């Protein structure tokens, strides 16, 4: 029987806009297919072992919370997290979690906050927040003909991608990474970063299944593909927003 081990990083601190919904979507879609799943909360002071997890989730937080975990992240978790990224562990990093994976976050005051540096992107803070519904297109998203992903963004940082990192998708509606270049999120190895919460995974099951498939393929050589599920309600929710935002 297959088994997937999920690490929820700083669940007590990075859990701002319904981030737990992403964990819940992973759990349910694994369970519905009879795949065992375990979720391990890893917070301040807890060790993070780079080989223990198949999927790592990092959510968003307010500046206040990010301040609290900053020392632990850089002193205790930087090395093993970078190792996990390099060895192909599947990551989903949303909003603040996305920013933390990059090189630095420069506040609007000019102060530069060092981040993990596991990926080559950086974020610059602005006074004006980029807030609203977000629709973007992920090329090659299986099981979903239009490849459109629906969410909600709310960030004051603008993120820019450097060499080696590719955008996760193209913005169709909303701001995305910075509201300037038309891209949303970032991809590096098996790391998926996005500004989209809402929650992202429950209403975009094709993306959820992509993460699960990658994790299973990496862990089990004999794994071929996921059993399809009835995603009628999810499709209706997505359609409702796409119709309203784009086709109106």
């Amino acid at each position, binding site marked *: 029987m297959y088994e997937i081990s999920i690490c929820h990083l700083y669940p007590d601190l990075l*859990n701002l806009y319904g981030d*737990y919904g992403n964990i819940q979507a992973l759990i349910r879609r694994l369970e519905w297919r009879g795949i065992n799943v375990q979720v391990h*909360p890893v917070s301040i002071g807890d060790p993070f072992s780079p080989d223990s997890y198949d999927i790592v989730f990092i959510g968003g937080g307010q500046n206040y919370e990010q301040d609290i975990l900053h020392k632990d992240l850089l002193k205790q978790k930087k090395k093993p997290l970078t190792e996990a990224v390099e060895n192909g562990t599947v990551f989903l990093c949303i909003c603040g979690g996305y920013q933390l994976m990059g090189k630095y976050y420069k506040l609007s005051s000019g102060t530069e906050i060092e981040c993990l540096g596991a990926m080559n992107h950086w974020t610059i803070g602005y006074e004006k927040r980029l807030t609203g519904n977000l629709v973007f297109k992920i090329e090659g998203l299986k099981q979903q003909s239009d490849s459109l992903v629906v969410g909600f963004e709310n960030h004051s940082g603008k993120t820019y991608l450097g060499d080696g990192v590719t955008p996760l998708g193209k913005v169709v509606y909303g701001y995305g990474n910075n509201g300037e270049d038309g891209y949303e999120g970032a991809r590096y190895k098996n790391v998926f970063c996005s500004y989209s919460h809402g929650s992202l995974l429950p209403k975009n099951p094709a993306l959820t299944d992509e993460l699960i498939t990658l994790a299973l393929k990496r862990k089990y050589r004999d794994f071929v593909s996921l059993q399809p599920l009835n995603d009628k309600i999810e499709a*209706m929710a997505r359609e409702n927003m796409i119709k309203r935002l784009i086709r109106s």
Partner: protein
Amino acid sequence: MKRIIKLLRLYTALFIGKLAIYVCRIAGSGGTSFPGRIAMKIYPEILRTIGSGYRIIMITGTNGKTTTARIIEQILRENHIKYVANKSGANLVSGLVTTLISDVRLKGTPSSPTALLEVDEAAFKVASKYVHPAVLVVTNFFRDQLDRYGELFSAVESVKEGILNSPDTTLVLNGDDSLCASLGRDVKNPVIYYGMDNIPGFEEENGINLNNDASYCLFCKNKYEYLYRTYSHLGSYKCPGCGFQRPEPLVHISRVPAMTGEFTTAVINTPSGNFEANINLPGFYNIYNALAAVTFAEVLGFSHDKTVKALACFESGFGRMESIPVDDKNIQVILIKNPTGLSQVLKYLSTVDRPFVICFMINDNTADGTDISWLYDVDFEPLKNMQNMIRRIFASGIRAEDMAVRLKYAGIFTDNIVIEKNNPAMLDAALNTLNAGETLFILPTYTALLDIRKLLKKRFDLKNFWQ
């Protein structure tokens, strides 16, 4: 000459404001903010000028403003105090101005000398530039509409700024909420705290605490240690770093002898003696609202007898557990605004002892919060565990489908979820699903409440919401 022009402008503003209120009501809309907005255009200082004649009581905080105001209102009534209140829940500055204009005489003097005003957290800061309440009651701070406020702490900071503008205001603060209690630190104001003792059976299980709004000290960022929790981040906390801790409450609840689907009995301890009271509204979180109101009564030195009477008979606000009998069935409307509020409502539903139907009405207009991801911050476990009691769950409103997805991922059987965006059709179907003696719980977001209230009013002849 300048003075005369100023006076003329004031009278014009009052006259036009009153006229606008009158016209709006005739037209059948509440007109609860618009008249104030026009009056402020004509005479920007209107709140200061007419507000100075009133003894003002303000209530702010994330949840419980309206219910606390309704209880205080009843307490004022029992004590024969003439008051005016913003009953409609229009709690931005324009709403406060509208309320005062509706009461003030044309020459600018109050006809009811006490004003009971619930105020939006951010609006309080603005209002405090013009008027200073005699008493400010703060209920709590939870994450709420972050698309509008940005971060949770900005709400706390707004209220703090307003307090710094009002150094003579007596503060009535929820000491069990570390964010709320922080307002009482380093201020010159007289401060009175209220709280709940550690009551066996009410302590919140320490499961995954999704609402980590205040796990860490606001002052020094160490993790709080809790002696007990009542719900969410409320309870008896202490910071091991700087020593900031739950202040000793002057008014506190020591026992809860009964809690039913209709009312709660609580033993309330005050410096002037202890007494038992029935709170005419179910739900654990309403105990806190009652406690806030009782503490207010204590500040004003009202007799316990009258407070007890008020607690037993106050009318809950528009859409706040408002009950509507329909033949041999019942409808209860409970406004949902944010994760903590909805989690508490679900906890309340788990105490209902007859099968029922739920309808979630989720809109994403500006007043609701345009971001609906808060639905994923809600603990739906109680709902999952009482599926045998739920005859059907309807999902309605602009984001009905998203609500259905949320329920699906909470582990609710999808066969039992019906998406119905047409309100009259939903209402008929829901009522038809019920047997005699059972209740339909309608849980709308703010603008969905306005919609469903209109329909219910038409069908069942209810009061207007501003009354």
